[in-house]
């Protein structure tokens, strides 16, 4: 049987060129499954993968962009919580552990059941993005006042919360739209991973970036419906599990390399990267507070909406630490981690 597999982005994006394509290639080499790929949202627009899987428009979403499904994968946003000293490989391992864990969050449900299983989905992690960082078109951010009212592009609810906590004005738009907005100062900065810059031609546009503090990482899933999965043979499933895992880790390693490369290339052309530790104390404190407040507000929002936000955040924080990443102090205290 031939499977329609689709990506919302083009082949130049690392989730397509470095995940979907290699995944298809390995699967076709190691199993008798065949795929017809669709790129750039030609069949499924980003954020509509769930509906497309359910109504049979496609059989495989690679990736299913959980953050674009407003409110439908609430707990999956944990990976977007701000962390310190994390990269794609650490983050991808942490998410794989979270998805494999049998620790229950609420009503006897694990993270996996809550997010995917209950929707009749089977999912695997793809490589996490590199750390999202705060970048501007040139405005230096070394005093909390610099951020006041500054219009900044936000890509998700968590970015919006974080920017609000920083005192900036969040403007929600896609990265593609933000190119013109940034070049005309409609927004003066964005939250995006440096490795993502080439996908949107931001290398010449973004001049000032704060590193070291991750404004979260974006994650997404390789996903099929339970029904599709049940149609596979045991052999096919075993191969699928192995290939998915290996491709994701290769993907993560590639993304970390890409991040370093883009940083080097743009620094050579005059872009500035400032480490969190090198910022003046008031600014550092403001960023730390905002990062912690983001955890608190997200958890409160989730709990208010009836989702086990606290349990998920606590489990996620532990997994991040196990991988060698850190949690902002205030958040760690709030979650009583120590």
């Amino acid at each position, binding site marked *: 049987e031939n499977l329609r597999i689709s990506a919302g982005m083009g082949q130049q994006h690392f989730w397509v060129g470095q995940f979907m394509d290699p995944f298809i290639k390995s699967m076709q080499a190691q199993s008798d499954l065949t795929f017809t790929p669709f790129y750039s949202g030609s069949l499924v627009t980003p954020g509509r993968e769930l509906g497309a899987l359910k109504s049979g428009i496609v059989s495989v979403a690679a990736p299913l962009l959980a953050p674009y499904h407003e409110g439908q994968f609430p707990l999956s946003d944990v990976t977007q919580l701000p962390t310190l000293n994390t990269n794609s490989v650490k983050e991808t391992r942490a998410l794989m552990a979270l998805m494999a864990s049998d620790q229950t969050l609420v009503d006897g449900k694990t993270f996996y059941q809550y997010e995917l299983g209950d929707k009749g989905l089977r999912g695997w992690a793809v490589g996490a993005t590199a750390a999202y960082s705060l970048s501007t078109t040139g405005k230096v951010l070394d005093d909390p006042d610099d951020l006041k009212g500054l219009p900044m592009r936000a890509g998700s609810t968590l970015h919006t919360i974080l920017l609000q906590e920083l005192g900036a004005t969040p403007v929600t738009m896609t990265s593609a739209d933000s190119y013109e907005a940034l070049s005309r*100062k409609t927004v003066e900065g964005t939250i995006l991973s440096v490795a993502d810059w080439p996908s949107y031609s931001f290398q010449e546009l973004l001049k000032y970036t704060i590193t070291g503090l991750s404004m979260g990482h974006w994650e997404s899933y390789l996903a099929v419906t339970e029904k599709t999965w049940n149609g596979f043979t045991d052999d096919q499933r075993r191969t699928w599990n192995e290939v998915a895992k290996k491709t994701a880790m290769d993907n993560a390693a590639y993304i970390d390399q890409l991040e370093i490369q883009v940083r080097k290339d743009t620094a050579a052309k005059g872009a500035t990267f400032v480490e969190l530790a090198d910022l003046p104390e008031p600014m550092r404190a403001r960023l730390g507070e905002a990062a912690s407040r983001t955890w608190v507000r997200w958890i409160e929002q989730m709990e208010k909406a009836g989702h086990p936000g606290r349990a998920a955040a606590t489990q996620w924080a532990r997994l991040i630490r196990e991988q060698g990443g850190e949690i902002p102090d205030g958040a760690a205290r709030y979650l009583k981690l120590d």
Partner: protein
Amino acid sequence: MSNTLIIWIVLAWFAVFLVLGQNVATVLFGAGMLGIVLMVGIDVLGGLLGPDTFYTASIYSLSIVPLYLLMAQMLLRGGVIKDLFQVGHRLSGYRRFPLGVATIVTGSLLGAVSGSGAASAASLASLASPELERLGYTRRFSLSLSAVAGSLSAIIPPSLIMIIYGSLTTVPIGHLFIGAIGPGVLCVLVYMICLRLFGEVRPGVEDGVSPDQPPAPDETRRSGSAFAFVLGLMVVVFGGSYGGIVTVAEAGALGAFAAIVGMLLMRRVGARDLFLALSESVKITATLMMLVLGAKIFARFLSFSQLPNELLSLMQPTLDSPRLVAAILLAVFFVGGMFLESAAVIVLLVPIILPLLQAAGIDLLWFGVSASMMIALGLLTPPVGLASFAAASAVNYPAAPVFRAASMFALAAGVVVTSLLIFYPALVTWLPARIQ
């Protein structure tokens, strides 16, 4: 049913209902839905139609369209365009050739503020054509020239089809507008030469005759102020956007706002004109958006059918020479422009050929400008050159003779401008690469 058979059935549906006069948007919806149902079944319609319709109707970059239309509507209703033409007329000493040039220049100014080539052609046909005739050009040639001048709206920025192209390909719309300046100016020059060469004059009519009544002094002042106003507006709209101060959308909003305030202050329009301008702009926008919505559904069918991929493998041998691919594709756009509304050509063809462009490594900015050029030419030529038709029908004149001269202009511009575009792509890409 085999893939190939389904594709043929859908194409047949498309051709039959198009020729039978069903509106293009419905043809796109119908053919797209039929194809999807035949190819994957009716179940998937539920996941496609609702979300596609809503999310396509809420694309920010398309919201720019009504803003530019509103600006143009205000200027037309304020009589500014008419005054501009009169200024040119007077400056040229009421002579024949300069008046023809003034018509083309007015057309390109009109092109710069309005979206529709047909609408521009129609207004020029009633505005400029009688004057052209009075100075000796034949009626059919005067109408052809109006059509030619009106067709420039597809290529002289702001062009609505470029906004749509930009929203389909994510090429920044500002870059498209800037890139179109070079070819646009070139096109105007070619048309001036054509005017010199093909100008059809009634024998024995004297050149350079002033009108019986010289313009009143306050009329002169009035058209002078109109001239200054449009100049100021151009600075706001183009300067702001090209200078990197505002986005193309913001430039459109500022331009519309300035046009409203200016026309009201100059007492050229009243509240009723504003009301009519608003309602006309939204109606044209909605009509265009129906095409975009229908094309979205049709594009989904194309994706399922893998037609673009098959086209890609068919063209594989030619991919090594991007120029050849570009020439072939531009020819397709020209033919499309001969039969269809310009926006329909863009929304229909771009999803099919986008993979080809990417595979051949053709610059999408360059292609967008060149394709708009092809469509501008298609506005003039038979069988359905909408600009020629509009110019003819505005004064109840048969279309065939108008087509004849207009096609000569289109042919000349097609040969000269297209070959320059293909052999000197920098004509398009040089400027956008240099301006922020």
